[in-house]
């Protein structure tokens, strides 16, 4: 069986000035039906751009190259008509800001129903009835009455539930959630993560969860990819990544988590900051902040080594083993 989604050497570059600036560098990933994949990375790691690239929604100044396949069909270079048929129907997306991702002038019932009317030709009455069922499923009480509500009448958590209902409407095979809970309170976050996990499981959807928050990814993803500066650092089963991180960057991230055991004291941080994309060297993006780095790290992309259950992208695998 071929993978639901696969990319090979997916590269996204900003074509400006003399040299194109790479935002995502040579991403390889494979996702089978019903699998859950986490992508973690800090701001500027290219994780959101990856999500947009999977949807064919990268800004017009950007170019995607390499290979991007959905159900075996090559999507690059993008064909707008083909992407339009996939978006919403086969691949759905949840955004970070539920406050602005809903249109303020339309009632939410109509906004949920539109996807069904658009992709499946459902009649308005039937689509609204389905919207009510979806609202009920995502945990909005009195769903039938709430169909007539405007987005500003809902709380942030409720709006994100509405976004999830919209994403589920056409029963997509793949759900991409880009920082779905980052704008919400911690208590609401937990409820929404649980909701996402439940609906993904009951519909055997594949899920790509993108977050800067290791906890969110740990909650939802079987496998995780760690991105830094647009390149993969380490990938593997989420549990293995957390319990036995190999890459210096992953280790730094785990060490930086405020632990339960430690009381007070300074928080651990990774020294330095992410260099801007146009100053990235040809080699490992992390070399400038890595205590193991040498000349080869700066000039060459690292090889991939299997260490334990994880694939590690590092020149120093013997040192970090």
């Amino acid at each position, binding site marked *: 069986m071929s993978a639901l989604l696969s990319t090979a050497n997916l590269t996204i570059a900003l074509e400006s000035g003399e040299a194109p600036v790479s935002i995502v560098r040579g991403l390889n990933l494979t996702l089978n039906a019903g699998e859950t994949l986490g992508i973690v990375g800090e701001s500027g790691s290219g994780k959101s751009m990856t999500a947009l690239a999977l*949807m064919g*929604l990268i800004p*017009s100044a950007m170019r995607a190259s390499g290979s991007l396949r959905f159900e075996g069909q090559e999507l690059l270079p993008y064909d707008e008509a083909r992407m*339009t*048929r*996939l*978006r*919403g*129907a086969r691949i*759905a*997306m949840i*955004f970070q*800001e539920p406050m*602005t*991702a*809903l*249109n*303020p*002038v*339309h009632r939410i019932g109509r906004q949920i129903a*539109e*996807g069904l009317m*658009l*992709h499946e030709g459902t009649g308005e009455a039937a689509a609204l009835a389905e919207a009510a069922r979806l609202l009920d499923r995502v945990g909005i009480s009195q769903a039938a009455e709430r169909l007539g509500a*405007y987005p*500003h009448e809902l709380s942030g958590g409720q709006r994100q539930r509405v*976004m999830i209902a*919209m994403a589920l409407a056409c029963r997509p095979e793949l759900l991409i959630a880009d920082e779905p809970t980052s704008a919400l309170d911690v208590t609401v976050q937990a409820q929404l993560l649980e909701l996402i996990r439940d609906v993904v499981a009951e519909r055997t959807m594949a899920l790509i969860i993108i977050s800067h928050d290791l906890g969110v990814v740990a909650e939802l993803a079987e496998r995780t990819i760690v991105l830094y500066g647009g390149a993969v650092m380490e990938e593997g089963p989420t549990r293995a990544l957390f319990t036995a991180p190999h890459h210096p960057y992953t280790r730094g991230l785990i060490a930086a988590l405020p632990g339960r055991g430690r009381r007070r004291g300074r928080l651990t941080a990774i020294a330095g900051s992410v260099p801007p994309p146009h100053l990235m060297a040809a080699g490992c993006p992390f070399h400038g902040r890595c205590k193991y780095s040498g000349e080869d790290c700066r000039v060459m992309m690292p090889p991939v080594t299997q260490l334990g259950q994880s694939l590690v992208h590092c020149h120093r695998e013997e040192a970090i083993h």
Partner: protein
Amino acid sequence: MAGGVAAAPRAGRSPWRHPSFVIGGAIVGCIVVVALVSLVWTPWPATKMNIPHKLLGPSAEHWLGTDHFGRDVASMLMVGARNSLAVGFVAVGIGMLFGVTLGTLSAAKSGTWLDEAIMRSADFTFAFPAVLSAVMITALLGPGVVNAIIAIGIYNIPVFARLTRSGALQVWAKDFTLAARAAGKTTVQITLRHVIPNIGGLIIVQGTVQFATAILAEAGLSYLGLGTQPPNPSWGRMLFEAQTYMQRQPLLAVFPGLSIALAVLGCNLLGDGLRDIFDPRVARSRA
């Protein structure tokens, strides 16, 4: 919502609490009623001459007096109102239809040669003052009310095109249009369902302001003899004819002048009020 893209009107914010909306609405409403009444009834036939009764002052028989042909001024003003409103509606309609279409197209294709072409043509049209371009167009097509409407309508196109483009660009930058694209909607569907409803308030407000400009432009063209042709009454033409009799009957100029001023004031107040209602931020900062 930054920079004028309106939010959905919220329940509980009553339009009746905006004085400019109420006053402007009342004035425009009165003019519309008068214009409608003139379709079925006027005190006198508006074009009927009665030379022995020329240049009379206001009386019970002729409420606002008579002009140099003995025509009833009140009746002429009523029919003239119809004329002004018709010109305003059609000219603003033309401007909105083409302007909003071009503006949304320009925004949807922002940064392309098409966007550039539309906006530079708008700049070109906009470079000529309203009345001047109207004079040029009527000079080209010949005088008459239809050509005046076309001229004013063409002048209005770039006004709406620019406004629509800037408003639409703001909407395109919002997350919900990205979400709509992620839901598989095409550019046309997003423009119709998301962009236009979100800038509707902006366009309507501009419409009332342009309506006032159109009334003024029609009066100006008629004054110059390029608009409504005799014997059809028009406020601008009445003003022109009254000029000759300034010494003998100054009131003859006062009534059409007052009508034009009132109509323009009414539209502008209405536009002001609507803007406050559509944009809660403005309303609050003014209160």
